[in-house]
Structures are given as structure tokens and as C-alpha cells.
């Protein structure tokens, strides 16, 4: 009996990765405590978020069971379905807050752009893997086009946060697949030159966000308010913070979106520089482990996918922390495993699951 249970247990955990699981779990616990602090005096979201995390962990486990060869097969169908849904959103999407991001299914509504965060790296990794034997310039061009289509559709919704994440995920695949430095340098130069034109194409509210970053006091009732209040929250937290549930900025309702995108402001105020340092270390561990898995992966597909998923995670962290601390403009990017919200949690958990799958199925391939 005991031996049987032990075998079942080994089967369950065979494809999990200890370090990844441990760090993710730690982040989730910190996240739960912070969500509780941010919401308990009005509309407690603790149990909802715990439920989201349970779903996320299940998704992580399930994805980890699939060997990379199987994951690869999802690339094309997920990508095609995702792009079709984005086109449907473009024509039939429901408008919420001035952006067309959702598709109504009658009983519920879905945000297809979320799917692309996984589908784009899968698709591009599959594409490079297929052409591994003789990668030429045209393959990078095709890959860039495959990335550009969903990126443009999402940016037009408009949803700058998701567009950045999808674009970054795709770019990382192309980068790890060996895009030449000359091209990267060229692209950077072109981007610099195009910046003034992009400026004219941005939506008014996006331009406003960038301007308020430079001088938050120009728009104290609008988006400048977010930045002013969140920097006050962070700064007043000091070295050790005001203590859990004791943040005045948080509890006097100075911080907008405090349980979602701005949750770092709550955490920083109550936990101080020490807490932020620990948080940074946890993310660094997660990212380091991911890069290690990428370096050790056995196929091109697994390598570039692991690299892209890991750097995407880093992008979430950097963009979110940068915006909350006032060094990047405000875009809708959540803080991984901390911000309240089920969709992002599941997507990120699937990403961790992919890393686990790549790491634990390596051995099988070698034998």
C-alpha cells in the first residue's frame, strides 16, 4: 500500500521542477497576503484569488506533463485560432472603456489576445525548429511577419500592455534563434528614427501617459494621479515598511487599481525596501532558473521557447515595477503571481508549466 502511494506520488511530481515550484509558490503566498491587505476593507478578494491560484497550479501541472514534442504540435493551431479570434474582435468585438478587446460568446466573454502570449512563442519556436537545418535571412523575415500580424491587431484594439508582452515574447524567440547582431542594431536605430512618427500614431490617452511620466503634475486628476500616489506610497514605505495592513496610502484609498496593476505600491508601502529586495530576488531566481533550463534544453524548439517564456516573465516584472515606481509609462501589465486576476495567473502558470516540461523531458530524449 505504502509502495503504491509512493509510486502515485512519484508519478504526480515527476514532471515538476522543485526550484520553479518553490519560488512560484512563495510569490503566490506573498501575493495573497498583499491582495488581502489591498481589498479586505472594501471588497475582499482573498478567496477568489486563492481559487485563481489553484486553477493556475492545475494548469501548470497539466502543461508540465506534456513533452515538448507534443507542445510543438499546438503551435500552429493555437496561432491560427488566436489570429482568427483577433480578426473577429476587430470586427465584432465589444467595446469596453473605449477599447475593443473582448469577444462575446453569449454567456461569457473572452479576451483572445491573452492566448497569443503563449501561441506566438510556440508558433515561432516551431517555425525555427522546422527550418533548423538551414536558417536563412528569409526565415527571420517570415517569423517577423508572423509576429507582426497579431501584434498589430492587438495594438490597434488598443491594448498597449498586451501588445508589448506579445511582441516581446515573439522577439525573444527570434533573438534566441540567432538573429544577427547587425540586424538587431539596425532595428534599434530604425526604432529610434521612427519614434517621432510613432508618437503621432499613438492614441491621445497613450501620449498623455508618456507626458505625465515626465511631469505627473500636469494631469493630477487623470493618469498623473496614479504615478504621484504610487511613488508616495513606495517612498513613504522606507526601509522596512509600515507593516502589513498598515499602509496609509493604501487604506485611505489613495492608490487606484491597488489590487491589480498597482499592487506593488501596496506591497512597497507595507514591506519597504527589504520586501522589495526579497521580491526582486524571488523574480531573479525564477528568471535565472528559466534561463538555466533554456541553456540545458536539448532541441532548438525547447531552447528558444524556454528562453522566450523566461524573458517574457522578466518583461512583465520590469514593465510593471517600472510603471508603478514612475520610470516607465502606465500600461496595463500585471505583476506576475502578485496582481489580482485569473487570466494573467493562468497564462503565467502555463508558462512555468512549459519550462517544467522542457526541463523534465530532457532526460527522456537523451536515453
Amino acid at each position, binding site marked *: 500500500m505504502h509502495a503504491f502511494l509512493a509510486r502515485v506520488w512519484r508519478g504526480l511530481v515527476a514532471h515538476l521542477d522543485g526550484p520553479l515550484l518553490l519560488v512560484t509558490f512563495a510569490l503566490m503566498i506573498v501575493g495573497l497576503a498583499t491582495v488581502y491587505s489591498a481589498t479586505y476593507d472594501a471588497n475582499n478578494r482573498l478567496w477568489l484569488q486563492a481559487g485563481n491560484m489553484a486553477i493556475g497550479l492545475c494548469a501548470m501541472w497539466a502543461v508540465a506533463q506534456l513533452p515538448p514534442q507534443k507542445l510543438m504540435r499546438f503551435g500552429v493551431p493555437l496561432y491560427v485560432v488566436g489570429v482568427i479570434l483577433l480578426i473577429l474582435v476587430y470586427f465584432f468585438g465589444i467595446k469596453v472603456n*473605449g477599447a475593443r478587446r473582448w469577444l462575446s460568446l453569449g454567456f461569457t466573454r473572452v479576451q483572445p489576445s491573452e492566448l497569443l502570449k503563449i501561441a506566438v512563442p510556440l508558433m515561432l519556436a516551431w517555425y525555427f525548429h522546422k527550418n533548423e537545418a538551414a536558417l536563412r535571412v528569409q526565415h527571420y523575415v517570415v517569423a517577423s511577419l508572423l509576429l507582426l500580424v497579431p501584434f498589430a491587431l492587438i495594438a490597434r484594439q488598443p491594448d498597449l500592455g498586451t501588445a508589448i508582452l506579445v511582441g516581446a515574447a515573439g522577439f525573444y524567440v527570434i533573438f534566441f534563434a540567432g538573429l544577427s547582431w547587425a540586424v538587431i542594431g539596425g532595428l534599434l536605430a530604425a526604432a529610434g528614427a521612427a519614434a517621432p512618427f510613432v508618437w503621432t500614431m499613438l492614441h491621445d490617452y497613450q501620449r498623455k501617459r508618456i507626458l505625465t511620466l515626465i511631469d505627473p503634475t500636469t494631469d*493630477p486628476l487623470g493618469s498623473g494621479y496614479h504615478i504621484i500616489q504610487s511613488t508616495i506610497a513606495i517612498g513613504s514605505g*522606507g526601509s522596512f515598511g509600515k507593516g502589513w495592513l498598515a499602509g496609509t496610502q493604501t487604506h485611505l484609498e489613495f492608490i487606484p487599481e491597488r489590487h491589480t496593476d498597482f499592487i506593488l505600491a501596496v506591497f512597497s508601502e507595507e514591506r519597504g525596501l527589504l520586501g522589495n529586495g526579497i521580491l526582486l530576488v524571488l523574480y531573479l531566481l525564477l528568471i535565472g532558473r528559466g*534561463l538555466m533550463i533554456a541553456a540545458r534544453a536539448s532541441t532548438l524548439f525547447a531552447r528558444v521557447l524556454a528562453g522566450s517564456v523566461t524573458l517574457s516573465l522578466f518583461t512583465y516584472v*520590469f514593465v510593471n515595477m517600472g510603471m508603478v515606481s514612475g520610470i516607465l509609462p502606465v500600461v496595463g501589465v500585471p505583476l506576475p503571481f502578485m496582481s489580482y486576476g485569473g487570466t494573467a495567473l493562468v497564462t503565467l502558470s502555463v508558462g512555468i508549466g512549459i519550462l517544467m516540461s522542457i526541463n523534465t523531458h530532457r532526460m527522456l530524449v537523451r536515453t
Partner: protein
Amino acid sequence: MLARQSSLNAPDGDLSRFHLRVVLAAAGVLLALSLLGARFFYLQVVQHDYYSTRAEDNRISVVPIVPNRGVIVDREGVVLARNYSAFTLEITPSKVDDLEATIDGLSELIEVLPKDRRRFRKLLEESKTFESLPIRTRLSEEEVARFAANRYRFPGVEVKARLFRQYPQGPIASHAIGYINRINKRDLEMIEEREQTANYRGTDHIGKTGIEQKYEFQLHGETGYEQVEIDAGGRAIRSLSRTAPVQGNSLTLTLDVKLQEMAEKAFGERRGALVAIEPSTGGILALVSNPSFDPNLFVDGIRTDDWDVLNKSRDRPMLNRALNGTYPPGSTFKPFMALAALETGKRTAGQTISDPGFFNFAGHHFRDDKKGGHGTVDMYKSIVHSCDTYYYMLANDMGIDAIARFMGDLGFGQATGVDIEGESDGVLPSPEWKKRRFRRPEQQKWYAGETVSIGIGQGYNSYTPIQLAQATATVANGGVMFRPHLVKYITDSRSGEKTMIEPEPLRRLPWKPKNVEVIRNAMIGVNTQGTGARAFAGAGYTSGGKTGTAQVYSLKGSSYRESAVKKELRDHALFIAFAPAEEPRIALAVVVENGGFGAQSAAPIARMVIDYYLLGKLPEGAAKEDDVEED
């Protein structure tokens, strides 16, 4: 397969290049996270004192200053909607532990009626989080003083000076002006969608119907703000800087409120609607939907019992009959049918028919109201004496498609685009409409017999009074059609600049002037020797008109006797008119629900309205409701 995937077989160059990139990525990540760490160090250690001062001691709060809502006046400058300032007692529910105990405590100082409590509870259910809600409005000076002395006992409760909306005309023109009420979740979504969230910080009322709703963003104004220091308890200590709000733009309507009042009085207790339009601009002179309601009831959150009275009344005062009531036009449809006949060449003005008192279609007798018929009838007589048989035959000859096309161009069966939200389309019957409307194939088919009663404005025909008024105005105006509108111009509150609302024609219908003349002459005939003659006897001007009666109740072959039919099932009375005939300055449509014959109850209302508008005459001795010719 396995061998190809093995890293041992991958080209060495590729793999080492990949590893180099991983190392570079790791270095990049480390650099970026160090940058964040440095930023946190800067904010939390270097600048800690500064931020902690801002957070702990002198919390600077940005307080929005709500702008004055723009006023609404009629064409003569009579005020229809304005603002006044009053004190309210407000509770912020999230700052109060025991709401009931707090309210009980307050009621010892200040009168709080059960009504007030009920309203507060209703607001609480609908409220945004964290906002303060009024428990009492319009406090007296004495009540304010009494609360101020006891303020320390009630954390989370405060007296605020707020602006209230007032409609000095009460229920007059309420369906046109509309009302404001507290912002709910749907309004919030709309505000976000229009990217007005920052401007509505601090605003808690929004236009819900009528002009107040349609011109919300004109009337609202720009929110100002004040930076204030607040103490640990959240109370303002002193003002640091202030940006003044900009008052909302004011609206001047085309409506003449004296005319409106007169028209509403003319309806008395009867249910119905009237729309009067200036044909040369489309400006609405009067828009009546009777009964109406007092918009002042809504301003600080309507009390449950008032709401029940309005909602449960069988007369449905909240229904805007002028825009959302749809009625068969009855015989008022005939002039438009006649014009269609002339324009499509199906009839000439002089062509006659012989009316035996019925029209036989495939063995079915479509009866004329006059037993034995009207004899020899030409187009003029068909309108003046409202001969049904003429139009049964005409509709049958024209066919449903030609009728639907002509009436569609005249605006029947589609929203007119008047500046009030939620207008109904009505029904312009056609085979396509039937296909869309019904599901079962046998119901979807259009039968030729159905076309016959369309000709006299019955059958599936169903239009709003404003569509009828627009069509009448278009005929009066020789085919130049305007979008009916209520707002004449918007006055910018900053520059005083006036923006006129389009006197541009919606479309010009290519009618032959001589055909329009035939119809106008016949409609003048109605008011001098036909079904409208009694109502317009002795008028000091020439006018054109047409009576109509719309069946509410199908009599299934038996003859209609008003006295025998219950009031709710009596026919609707209709009248359309324009005056003066030479150069029309007013065109209107009247519907009196269950009013019987059009000549009896609807035409006298039209007479009173036109008398007042053209001659400034107040009503006296209107036509009596007896022995008039049936239409």
C-alpha cells in the same frame, strides 16, 4: 529522430552562440532588476523623508470642484432647467462602522423620515464604492448649525454644499427636457468609454432622458480642482492651489414653452401626443406627451413611493408617446398616399372612381365608413371627405413595394433622428419587413389583400407622432425635409459663442410642385368644407389638415358604435395640420388615445395650438364634440 534532436548533434557554433545569448540575456535581466532596485533605494531611502512627509503629515489631496451644469432655456429665454445650492447631510458608508446606529443618532438631531432612510438604502445598493451618499437634502441653516456642534460624534458624516438641478416649469415639457439622476454603473461605463472619467470625478448626477441626456457632455462643463492639505482624519486644513471649474454650456431650445403649456392643457386628462414643427427649419415648437411627470422628483434620487405611482399608473406617464408611442395613422395617411399616386403616375388629380360603399377584393368586402358610398370621387373629394374606397383601390393598384418606397423616403418607419435618445422606428409594412418580423414561413408571406387596408393607414402601419409631424412638415414645405430637433443653439460658457444646430435640409424630395399643390389644396379643403371644417370654422387664417381614426379594436364585421365600446378599446383620434397655408410656419400631428373620431377630439387641440402660435389667442369656445362628419 532522437539523434537529430540531441544537443550532441546540433552544430557546435549554433549552440555556443545560443549560450552566449543566454548569458547576455541574464546580464540584461540583472542590470534591469538592479535598476529597479536602485529606484526603490532612491525612493525608499534617499527620498524617504520627503515622501513620508507627504504621506503621513500633510497628505495632499486633490479635491475636484464640480462645475455648474449649463442651463436650458426655451426659444424666448424662459428658464426650463437651472441649478440652486443647498446643504446636504452625507454619509460615507466605508468610514462608518454601524450605519443604522449612526442614522439613529443623526435622527435625534435632524429630522430623518422613513422615506429618507429608504432612499438612502436604495442609493447604497447602487453606489460606487467609497462615495458619500446623502441621507438628508435641503438642510435648514439651523439644522446645519446643530450638526456642526455635534460633528465629533459622527465620523464619516459631513455636511456638504451641493448644487441641485431645478426644473421651474414642473411637469411642462418634461418629456422633452428630461431629467438628471445619480450616476449608476451603466453611466460609469459610458463615461469611461467616452474617456471622461477624470472630468466626472466628483460629479454624481448625469442626464438620464431627453435633452439632459442627449447633451450631457455640453451641459456638464469642465471639472476644476483644488489641492488641499488634509490631516490624518481626512479633513481639509488649507487650500494650496485652485483651478476653477468651467461652467457647462447653455442650451436654447426651439421649443416655445408657452405654446407647450397651452397644448398640454388642451389635452386635459386625455392620453396622447402632439408634435409641432417649424417646417422651414425642423425646429420643434412643442412636444407633448400626456400625461407627463414632474422631473424635480428625480433630482435627488426619486423616492420609492413616487416611483411606484409613476410606474404603476395605467396612463404610463413615463412613456414618451411622441417618440415611442406607435399608432396606425388611419386616414391621416391618405394625403401622403394621394401624393404617392400622383408622383408615381398611378392617378391624375381629375381621375374619378365610383364608390358603391365598399371595395371588393377576391370576394372580400372592404367597407367604406359611409354607407352607400360617396358616389363619384376624384382625388380632391377623396381627401376632403376621407373616402376609403378610393384608397383601397389605389393601394391595390400601386402595390405594396411602391407604397413602401414612397413612404420610406418620407421618413415613415424609421427614427427621425430627433435629439432625444431611444426613439422608436415604428413599422413601415413591406414584404421585406414581414420576412424579418415573422419566423414561420406562412406568416412571412405578404398577401395582396393586406395591401388594401394599408391604403387607409390601417393594417400593419404603425408610426410615431413625430414621424407623422415630420411628414406633414415636409409636404407643407414642398418636399424639403428637415431633421426634427429641439436645440436651436448652444452657447459656449467661456466665449459666449453660439453654435447653431443645422438648419441644413436632410433631403430634398424631387416632387413636382403642381402635385404638392393638389395635395395642399385638398388639405385646405378639409379644413374649409370637409372633416376639419367644424374645428377650424372662423379661424383668421387658412390652414390645411386631415383627420384620422385608428382602430384599436377589431370589430370583426359588426359596426362600430362608440357608446357600446369600453373606453380603453375606443379608436385613437388623429389630426395633422399646417398653417398658414400660403407659407406654413407650423406643422403638427396630434394623437388622442381612445379619443374616437379625429374630427371630434384631435382637431380642436390642433386649432387651439395654431390659434395661439399664429394669433397669440388663448382658447375659448372650441368646437363642441358633437355631430361632426366621420372621417
